[in-house]
C-alpha cells in the first residue's frame, strides 16, 4: 500500500500529512511535486493540505486546478482510488469538480485559525469508518476561504440525506448551530464526499490532530479508516 501527497508551489502541511501517514500510521507515502506527476499508481492521493497554491491568485485553488497533474487526480478518482483534499486541497478539489459546490470566502472575511468541533454525519465512508455516526471530534481549521456554498440544483439537504456529508461544524455536544459555524458554511457543512464516496474534501486539518502531543488524535482515525479501506480493497 502506498499513499501520495501532492505538492504545489505555495503548499504547506504537505510534510505534516506525509509525517502522519508514514510515521504515525505506518504506511509508505511519497511526496509528489506537481510538475513531476505520478510515476506509479497509488492507493490514495492527498491534495496538499494547506497553504496558498499560486498565491491564491484569482481564487483559492483556481490555478492549481488547471495543472495537468489534477487531470491525473481526476482519473485516479474516476477509477475508484481514494482522494483526500484538505483545506487548500479541498478548494482545489472543489474547483476541479470532484464534489458539487465550492469553498469560498468566509462569512466574516478574515483568516480563522482555531480548534473546532465536528459532528460525524457519515461513518460508513472509506474516510470515516473508524468513527461512529454522531461522534463529536475536535480538529483545527485554518482558512479564509472555507465557507461551503452548494451548487445550484444540488440542495445541501439532499447531500446530507444521501450521506454525502462527512462532517459538519457543531458545538461540544454535537449541535450544529449558527454559533458553532465559524465561517458561515451552508448547513454547517465542512466535509463533502464525492458521488462514489471515494473522494473527501474537507476544510479542517486532520493531519494537525493525529498525535496526542498536539492535543488531539481525533484526526488519525480518518487516515486509519483510509488504510482499512485500502487493505480490504
Amino acid at each position, binding site marked *: 500500500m502506498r499513499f501520495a501527497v501532492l505538492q504545489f508551489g505555495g503548499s504547506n502541511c504537505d510534510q505534516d500529512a506525509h509525517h502522519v501517514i508514514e510515521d504515525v500510521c505506518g504506511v509508505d507515502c511519497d511526496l509528489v511535486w506537481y510538475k513531476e506527476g505520478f510515476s506509479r499508481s497509488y492507493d490514495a492521493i492527498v491534495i496538499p493540505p494547506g497553504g496558498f497554491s499560486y498565491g491564491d491568485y484569482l481564487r483559492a485553488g483556481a*490555478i492549481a486546478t*488547471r495543472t495537468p497533474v489534477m487531470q491525473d487526480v481526476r482519473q485516479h478518482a474516476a477509477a475508484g482510488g481514494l482522494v483526500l483534499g484538505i483545506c487548500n486541497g479541498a478548494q482545489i478539489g472543489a474547483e476541479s469538480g470532484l464534489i458539487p459546490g*465550492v469553498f*469560498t470566502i*468566509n462569512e*466574516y*472575511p478574515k483568516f480563522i485559525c482555531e480548534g473546532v468541533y465536528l459532528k460525524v454525519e457519515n461513518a460508513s465512508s472509506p474516510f470515516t469508518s473508524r468513527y461512529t455516526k454522531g461522534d463529536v471530534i475536535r480538529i483545527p481549521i485554518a482558512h479564509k476561504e472555507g465557507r461551503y*456554498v452548494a*451548487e445550484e440544483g444540488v440542495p445541501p439537504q439532499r447531500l446530507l440525506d444521501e450521506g454525502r456529508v462527512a462532517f459538519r461544524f457543531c458545538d461540544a455536544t454535537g449541535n450544529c448551530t449558527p454559533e458553532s459555524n465559524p465561517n*458561515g458554511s451552508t448547513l454547517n457543512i465542512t466535509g463533502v464526499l464525492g458521488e462514489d464516496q471515494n473522494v473527501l474534501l474537507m476544510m479542517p486539518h486532520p493531519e494537525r490532530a493525529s498525535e496526542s502531543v498536539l492535543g488531539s488524535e481525533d484526526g488519525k482515525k480518518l487516515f486509519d479508516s483510509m488504510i482499512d479501506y485500502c487493505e480490504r480493497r
Partner: protein
Amino acid sequence: MTITVKITISLKDGMLDPEARAIQHALSNLGGYTTASLSTARVFNVGIDTDSSEEAKRLAAEMCDRLLANPVIHSYEVEAVE
C-alpha cells in the same frame, strides 16, 4: 490587430458578498455614507490578437468558462473596448 476586451466577473444574485458587507460597514463608520447596496466585482482587461470583436468576445467568454469565473458562484459580462 489587437482588440481589448473588458471582462467583469461578479457574484451571482443572492450570493453572500462578505467583502462588500465589510466595506459597507467601513463606509458607515466613516460617517454619513449610508449605502443602500454595494457589491464587489473583478475586472480583467485582456488584449486579444484578432480583427474581429465578435471573435475576441467569444474567446473571452471561453476564458471565463474555463478559468476566470467559477459558474457555481459567478456571472460574467464581456465587452469589446476597442
